[in-house]
């Protein structure tokens, strides 16, 4: 498996990894641009091979002062692109 060229993941995350909330979670410190990760934001998460779209649910305290980001998995980027194209919000 190879990374997709040029794909930048806002928050590295593992879609298999859930916690007691039932939501996918990741450490905020993993984000290259933490300012983009805020509650309510729609972000690209996962890895560059199989990224996914997620809504940031909340950000809570974690061990060692590292914040934990909870994610609601929305889908895959291709779904959003297809819908935006259908809506005329992206060039066909």
């Amino acid at each position: 498996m190879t990374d997709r060229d040029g794909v930048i993941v806002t928050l590295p995350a593992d879609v298999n990894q859930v916690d007691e909330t039932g939501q996918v979670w990741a450490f905020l410190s993993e984000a290259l641009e933490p300012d983009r990760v805020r509650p309510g934001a729609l972000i690209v998460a996962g890895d560059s091979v199989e990224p996914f779209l997620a809504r940031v649910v909340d950000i809570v305290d974690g061990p060692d002062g590292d914040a934990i980001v909870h994610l609601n998995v929305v889908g895959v980027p291709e779904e959003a692109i297809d819908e935006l194209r259908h809506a005329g919000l992206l060039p066909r």
Partner: protein
Amino acid sequence: MRPTAASAPATGCDVALSPIEELLRHGEELDDVRVVRGWPLTVEGLLRNADATRRRYSRAGEPFVAISAEAVMPGWPVDAILSGPRLRTRLRYAAVDAGALVEAGFDLLPTFAAPHVSVVLPSYTEALPSVCWTSSARFESTRIT
């Protein structure tokens, strides 16, 4: 399951590792289940998952080194797992019988809400690649829609 602090916004405060013992589902037998995990399936991806888990949870007072997966069990057929909101985003997944994981030296625990399970590693640094998921699992499918 114990209450979570998920509703409290981050304040920058340090919190202790959460004991995984308080987050187990009791009375579940996992001996005969099939364990499913979506991408990432590389050793690097598995280790990243294990590292995150050990930074957040403990077992018997020590960092809990484990990989997240899901178990095919009554009420949770494989199609339901793969078409669920999280794994439906995966192009690749792997599946392996619990017995093969145990034979390879891994423990399996029912953690959080069903069908989530934790594949426990003997240690974070132990020869994971030689017996890891990717060598014992069979790549089965592409995305189910």
